[in-house]
């Protein structure tokens, strides 16, 4: 088990004049190298909680430790330079170029020019920002580019901790999905401790190692891996927040390799048409897959075999798409729904046949024990 990087103990925040505390005695441990997503309805104190970690908001009670040190005992400016920070509107400095924006913290820390330049280039590459964007101003960038500059800037001084407050909420769904994938890929390499705030449970499921579900007033309703939250919501609030499709959402977290595949109706190219027909009838599929040296050739059905002696005489048709073992069950389900054969064919990257997934097989995974 990794060490605890951020630890909240009975953290409370009361804003002056407010009837109830925004965050009420919240305790949470965040392990080093994990992505923890704080999620909940508006008013649940998720942003307040996050901002107390870098002291943009000062807690009214309790203790917050980052890397074993009480944040209240540190100079907030020093503390913040070791914590990357990204918010929804990004807040790029409009009067600084992209390169200068990315170099913000290195500049504050007094890095020399060569080191700063090298770091800026490295980050631009990491976030797939074209080098020709570097001398431009933020106003000249697209929404998705700005988000990536924001993330690059937060990573610049290689802080062990990153705070991200709905960083992808303002971009369109397609760009958002791409940015999420990119963050997951980046995190796989960098292993930062990330605290990510969102109101979107789907985003939380995609990004999180652990999800903290907060209720109004900063009440922690459940804290656990996404799969656990979907499989076993702790209470009615969590169940309601996760939504009626939690079984479906859980599919996104299970990969094809996690479950046992069915063998499916398989024949070789030299198989007599008669045998193939019998197999269609016996398995009830109405078609068979044609495999040669474990590699998929395609599929044939009854009308195609009409008047043919052997399977290969019918010139098998290609499958529309395969699913690989690394894909999620959600993708497999998409493939099933879209296919003419009503199954997802699973193959490895070299087109070698591994088996099939049927709707029945997947629905067994959807039915979660409650």
């Amino acid at each position, binding site marked *: 088990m990794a060490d605890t990087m951020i630890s909240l103990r009975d953290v409370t925040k009361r804003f002056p004049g407010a009837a109830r505390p925004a965050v009420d005695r919240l305790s949470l441990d965040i392990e080093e190298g994990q992505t923890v997503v704080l999620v909940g309805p508006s008013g649940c104190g998720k942003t307040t909680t996050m901002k107390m970690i870098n002291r943009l908001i000062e807690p009214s009670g309790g203790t917050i430790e980052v890397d074993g040190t009480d944040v209240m005992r540190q100079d907030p400016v020093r503390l913040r330079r070791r914590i990357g920070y990204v918010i929804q509107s990004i807040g790029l400095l*409009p009067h600084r170029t992209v390169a200068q924006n990315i170099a913000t913290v290195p500049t504050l820390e007094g890095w020399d020019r060569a080191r700063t330049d090298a770091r800026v280039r490295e980050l631009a590459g990491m976030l797939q920002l074209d080098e020709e964007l570097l001398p431009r101003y933020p106003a000249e960038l697209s929404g998705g580019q700005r988000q990536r500059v924001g993330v690059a800037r937060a990573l610049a001084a290689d802080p062990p901790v990153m705070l991200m407050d709905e960083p992808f909420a303002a971009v369109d769904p397609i760009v958002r999905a791409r940015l999420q994938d990119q963050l997951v890929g980046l995190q796989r390499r960098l292993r930062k401790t990330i605290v990510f705030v969102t109101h979107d449970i789907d985003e939380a499921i995609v990004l999180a190692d652990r999800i903290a579900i907060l209720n109004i007033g900063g009440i922690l309703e459940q804290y656990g891996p996404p799969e656990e939250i979907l499989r076993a919501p702790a209470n009615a609030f969590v169940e309601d927040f996760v939504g009626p499709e939690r079984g479906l959402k859980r599919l996104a977290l299970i990969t094809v390799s996690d479950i046992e595949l069915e063998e499916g109706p398989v024949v070789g190219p030299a198989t007599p048409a008669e045998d193939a027909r019998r197999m269609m009838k016996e398995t009830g599929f109405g078609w068979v897959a044609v495999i040669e040296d474990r590699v998929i050739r395609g599929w044939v059905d009854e009308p195609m075999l009409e008047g043919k002696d052997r399977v290969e005489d019918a010139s098998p048709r290609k499958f529309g798409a395969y699913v690989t073992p690394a894909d999620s069950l959600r993708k497999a389900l998409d493939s099933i729904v879209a296919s003419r054969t009503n199954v997802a064919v699973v193959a490895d990257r070299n087109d070698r046949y591994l088996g099939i997934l049927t709707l029945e097989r997947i629905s067994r995974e959807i039915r979660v024990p409650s």
Partner: protein
Amino acid sequence: MNELFDWEWASTHLDLFARQLGQHVSLTLLAVAIGLLIALPISIYVHRHRRLYGPVTAVAGVLYSIPSLALFALLLPFTGLGTDTAEIGLVSYTLLILIRNTVVGLDGVPPDVKETARGMGYDDRQLLWRVEIPLALPVIVAGVRLATVTTIGLVTVTAFIGKGGLGFLMLAGFRNLFPEVAVLVGLVLSVALAVLAEGLLLAGQRVLAPWSRKGVAGA
């Protein structure tokens, strides 16, 4: 009436015009510089302590509304003829413009930019000098532009208290100490100076804010 177009006299007194133009420019520059030195700290303070904005601009507004001749006359018995009186009066006219523009400029800095800057570890001073002031600069410079052009006009009135720059030419021409052409020369040079200052500061505004030239601002 021909005196008004006595170009011969004018062409033989270019050095006089140059001297008065020089005085006009230095009176203006000094007034705007002192005005900025007073207005900037006040604006920064008022920007952080909002309740003071009303009272501060009210005081500056009163100064601004007092007719120039009256303001100089109010000072005269205490500070006498000369540069002190001229500058006190001129500076007090710049304050309203400079304070209002600076505060409006600082107000215009997007809150998300300030929040992330703070979140990344800018301390208060760095936030002010590296984020807020640079971003407010176009509006502040616009204020400097208005203050400068206004001051160029008002400097002429200081002729009454023994200064005046180009105003001295006007008053002397009017009182027939010089041919009347001096009034015209003073007026034309004064307008030219105002137009030049306006153009230079407009160009300065653009040079100082290269980021705002392209596309829409805001991240």
